[in-house]
């Protein structure tokens, strides 16, 4: 080993000028700092740019145009902007996706971390990660042509006949069900599949980071395997799993292409899940390149600013929660 190193260090290839040797370290340090600062500054630059570029829109409309209103007018030509349908679409699709994805993901995480035979663990982890690697346009294409026409027809039909009949709550599930499946419910389905790998992977790592003594103590007290998981491991890792959920929520809020392809892109004040809708990300994707006026593009940037801020807060909160579990178990979990 030692001779190898000496050979490396004295090889003619590395015969740097003596004078560079003395300056090498400061230069290297400077390069490292420059790279780091660039990474750090990017976040600030993105936030600052969005803030700066939406100045006129913020002065004109403030934040009130994002709030709920019955007046769903989005008329770029008349410079009249009410963004509630987009905000509603983003929130409702993401929340439904989270509701569907969390039990599923935590179940899969439990299987991967606690039950799965060792030989099966690696291939399963890979497959879950491949699910996350599929480009979102492919999800969108598959969703709109293959998955949703069937799934939304089926589930939407059942929902509108059962939950849709309940007074009050029924407005959320009122029909008719669109033939193509392009709807908020459809977007939520596709989002569910897309965020599941994220929540699963983080929850799995959180479960794996819990010390074995916890499992053993619970089993030694006579609990069944499920009771150990349900009463000991899940409460122990709860904040980490919550972090995973927030992270998934952040993904869902910001997801653009797949949602734009399957949600139908129609501005409507009807709150039902079964009608086509619009989201904040998809209105930016569809309209920004062809914005009719300066104010129009500024309003879209302001919507982008809100998205940026929301995902920022969610991410910071998620990292903090996961970090708090890792801290307790003195084991590193990175998202």
């Amino acid at each position, binding site marked *: 080993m*030692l001779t190898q*190193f000496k050979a*490396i*260090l004295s090889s003619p290839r590395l015969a740097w000028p003596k004078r560079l*040797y003395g300056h*090498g*370290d400061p230069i*290297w*340090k400077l390069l490292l*700092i420059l*790279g*780091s600062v660039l*990474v*750090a500054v990017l*976040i600030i*630059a*993105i936030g600052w*740019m969005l803030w700066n*570029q939406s100045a006129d829109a913020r002065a004109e409309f403030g934040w009130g145009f994002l709030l709920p209103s019955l007046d769903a007018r989005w008329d770029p030509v008349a410079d009249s902007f009410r963004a509630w349908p987009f905000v509603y679409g983003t929130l409702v699709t993401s929340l439904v996706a989270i509701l569907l994805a969390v*039990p*599923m*993901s935590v*179940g*899969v995480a*439990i*299987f991967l971390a606690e*039950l799965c035979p060792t030989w099966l663990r690696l291939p*399963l982890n890979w497959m*879950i*990660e*491949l*699910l996350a*690697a*599929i*480009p*979102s*346009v*492919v*999800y969108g*294409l*598959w969703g709109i*042509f293959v*998955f949703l026409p069937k799934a939304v027809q089926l589930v939407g039909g059942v929902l509108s006949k059962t939950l849709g009949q309940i007074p009050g709550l029924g407005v959320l599930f009122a029909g008719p069900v669109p033939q193509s499946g392009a709807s908020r419910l459809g977007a939520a389905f596709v989002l569910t*599949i897309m965020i599941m790998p994220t929540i699963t992977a983080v929850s799995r790592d959180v479960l794996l980071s819990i010390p074995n003594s916890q499992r053993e103590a619970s089993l030694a007290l006579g609990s*069944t*395997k*499920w009771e150990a998981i349900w009463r000991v491991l899940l409460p122990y890792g709860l904040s980490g799993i919550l972090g995973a959920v927030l992270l998934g929520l952040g993904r869902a809020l*910001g997801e*653009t292409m797949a949602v734009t392809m399957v949600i139908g892109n129609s501005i409507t004040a009807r709150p039902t899940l079964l009608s086509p809708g619009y989201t904040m*990300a998809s209105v*930016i*994707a569809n309209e*920004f390149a062809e914005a009719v006026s300066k104010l129009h593009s500024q309003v879209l*940037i302001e919507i982008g600013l809100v*998205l*940026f801020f929301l995902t*920022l807060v*969610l*991410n910071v909160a998620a*990292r903090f929660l996961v970090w708090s579990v890792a801290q307790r178990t003195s084991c590193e979990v990175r998202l």
Partner: protein
Amino acid sequence: MNVLESQPMVNQRALGARRKATNAIMLSLTAVMTLLALVPLFWIIGYVVYRGGQSLDWAFFTQLPKPLGMEGGGILHALEGTIVMTILAAVFATPPGVLAAFYSAYHPNTPLGVVVRFSTDVLSGVPSIVIGLFGYAVLVVPAGHYSALAGGAALAIVMLPTIVRTTDEMLKMVPHSLREASLALGAPEWKTSLQVVFPAALNGIITGFLLAVARAAGETAPLLFTALGNERYEIGLIIRNGLAQRQSALQILGRIVDQPVDSLPLTLWKYAQQPYPERIEQSWTIALVLMILVLFLNIIARLWVEARRRRLQG
């Protein structure tokens, strides 16, 4: 707490049976969920291969698109655009990413080290459409036109967190003794980093790089307002024209990167929204090409890292 005393003894056996049943049901439920979660993966891959494979031929990769409504034509423009922008993104993102990772791996508890890790984590959560807006405002507006350069820079922002994070992890896996041995022999810090630590971590860094490339190659949203799209983009033609006009290599390179381009996912998105059946058919074929590219890169990267982990551990 005396849990047992609060339960009447008579029910103990029934309780035991119920607990066992709950255990069995819930545990098998998690297995069922795992199977269910994998259904979309195989459904998507299977269907994309089935639909996309039908019109996959050599011409698809070597021809420009035909006018709307006509049969045939290919996606050469998008393929070349994806390659150009991915290379640009890798060139933009790798040096700062690796440098930042070196910093955060060896100075983890300094303020800047914490800031680097924090902002990497946050950056990976920024919606890609927002990165597109950023690229538009910072690169397209000042330049006055859409370009592959702007698209590549936007993709670089998408790649950056993956590169920093995996490089950081791989650097931490390099045994400390290696680094200390080099320093003890009197090698300066920079030489130790570049010629001892970096080669030792190189395999892992390449893994992270491949994952980042896979992610960038599949991204659409950052390109919507930076690269825009260009159905007449053909590098071969640009080079031939450039040579005919006796332009220098630098000028030709400038023409390649400084005009709007398409990419595979961008073209897929546009084609999928058009009412022409042959375009829809082509969008499935693009999906197939994209999936092969992305899944291939992912599998290579993971095999690589797995082999390496085995070697380090045993």
